[in-house]
């Protein structure tokens, strides 16, 4: 009898028509959600529309694999291979330096460090994430670039190496934070079982915890790649920005800096401006690819 009454109550609440203001609020939330979707669509469509003409005019092969970029020369050349390779090398370099540091830092913070130390270091990591990229660039320009010049006895320190180091530091917070979350989420029972079977704590971390968190850590790496490939301001200040084919101690130009460096001066509708949009489109495709990879890892994580 009592049970029936409760159910009855429940049914009544469920079936009550939603009040008017609920509907309004639903509508508002829906609209807010659609704004995001709208922005993405708008940007995508705009980029595609403004990026395609130049690629057509220059020819896709010449555009992607041309080794020379001289957009304002009397005979302009629009080859972006140097930019693509620089972005790829720069990002790879940053990952090679940043991932080991970030990964081991995350393992230490999640599994070994005392609570007190962890909170201090985590606060520092958050702070590192909050530093504006122009500050990274400035410090790189004033400290790192001269240091590279002195250390390696090259005439000028503004180089791919400088950009790699700056990017590696910039992606650290992303990698550390996401990896910590993944490692923290490993059920304690796994570790307890491993320890009970006689494994040492370090063995437990690397043979049980890390493999269990591996898709989360992979997501951290991909996130780092995304941050590194999309960074413009900081690398613009340390990389020298000359459209050379990449080499460690040479001045190089990234995809991002190629766009931002010339955009202000290119006149609307000119081939130069359109080619810049095409570069942006290529960069956008790279980032879409990275996002797809990220989603793949995250989804796999969820299914587990």
């Amino acid at each position, binding site marked *: 009898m009592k049970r029936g009454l409760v159910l009855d109550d429940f049914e009544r609440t469920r079936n009550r028509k939603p009040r008017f203001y609920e509907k309004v609020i639903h509508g508002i939330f829906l609209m807010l959600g659609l704004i995001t979707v709208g922005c993405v669509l708008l940007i995508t469509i705009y980029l595609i529309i403004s990026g395609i003409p130049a690629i057509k005019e220059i020819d896709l092969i010449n555009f992607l694999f041309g080794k020379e970029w001289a957009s304002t020369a009397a005979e302009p050349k629009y080859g972006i291979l140097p930019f693509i390779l620089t972005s790829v090398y720069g990002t790879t370099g940053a990952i090679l330096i940043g991932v080991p540091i970030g990964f081991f830092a995350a393992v230490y913070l999640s599994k070994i460090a005392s609570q007190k130390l962890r909170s201090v270091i985590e606060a520092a990591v958050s702070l590192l994430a909050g530093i504006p990229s122009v500050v990274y660039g400035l410090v790189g320009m004033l400290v790192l670039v001269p240091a590279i010049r002195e250390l390696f006895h090259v005439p000028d320190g503004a180089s791919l190496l400088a950009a790699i180091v700056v990017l590696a530091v910039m992606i650290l917070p992303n990698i550390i934070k996401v990896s910590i979350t993944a490692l923290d989420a490993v059920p304690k029972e796994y570790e307890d079982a491993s320890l009970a079977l006689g494994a040492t704590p370090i063995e437990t971390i690397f043979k049980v915890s890390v493999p269990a968190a591996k898709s989360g850590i992979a997501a951290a790496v991909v996130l780092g790649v995304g941050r590194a490939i999309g960074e413009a301001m900081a690398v613009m200040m340390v990389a*020298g920005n000359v459209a050379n084919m990449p080499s460690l101690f040479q001045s190089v130009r990234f995809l991002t800096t190629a766009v931002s460096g010339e955009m202000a001066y*290119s006149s609307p509708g000119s081939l130069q401006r359109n080619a810049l949009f095409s570069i942006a489109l290529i960069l956008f495709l790279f980032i879409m690819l990275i996002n797809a990879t990220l989603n793949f890892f995250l989804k796999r994580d969820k299914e587990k």
Partner: protein
Amino acid sequence: MKKIISLFVTVMLLTCTLTGCGGSKEAVATDGSTSMNKVIGALGESFEADTGITVTYNATGSGAGIQAVQEGRCDIGLSSRNLKTEELEKGLEGTVLAYDGIAIIVNLNNPVSDLTVEMIARIYTGEITNWSEVGGSDTEIVLIGREAGSGTRDGFESITDTEDVCVYRQELTSTGDVITTVASNPAAIGYASLASVKDTVKPLTVDGIAPSEQTIKDGSYVVQRPFVLVTKADAELSESAQKFFDYVTSGEASEIISNAGVVPAN
């Protein structure tokens, strides 16, 4: 709260009336040199604030600007070079608004203090690669320049006749970056608008003449170019264009012109 809101609304309405919302008078159309962006922008802004007449600026390049005046597509053409004789013969008239002086800067520790224009050109084209070849220490020269499209780069390359052939080590996106980089690298050489050069770097004398407002104005410092207002000699300017012309060539505009980093002619 209500008071605050009403105050806010009043202020908004007041600013609207004061700035003259919707009161679009005749506009002055200017067209030409991309390098004059900054100076024309600053002048146009203050002119508009004073008179309410808007000044439009179309950055097309000196040649296109001169042609636009001739064809009557704009009121005032902007050229960052002197008019050629054939352009003068076509009935155009040039009035120098300002001079853009470009300082060649090196690190304070660099023993070199004078170069000729020809040497500068050879350095920037990569013919001379070591400071010892021009009387300095035995270090490789590091060429610092500006990004393609920059007015300073355009000016420097056209004066030294090195368009599209400079082999830069770094292409930086602002004058400040160029100065900072040159200040921190003992082997660097760069160029920057004279107005922005501070004592963190050493401006070179060119052909023995130090850059200064005086030497730029009298033409003895050669790494400079004029900013010219181009008008038709026989036709009269529209009333608002004449007002703008008088305003920018008057003494009161000279402060705005120097703030834009160039040396006023008047």
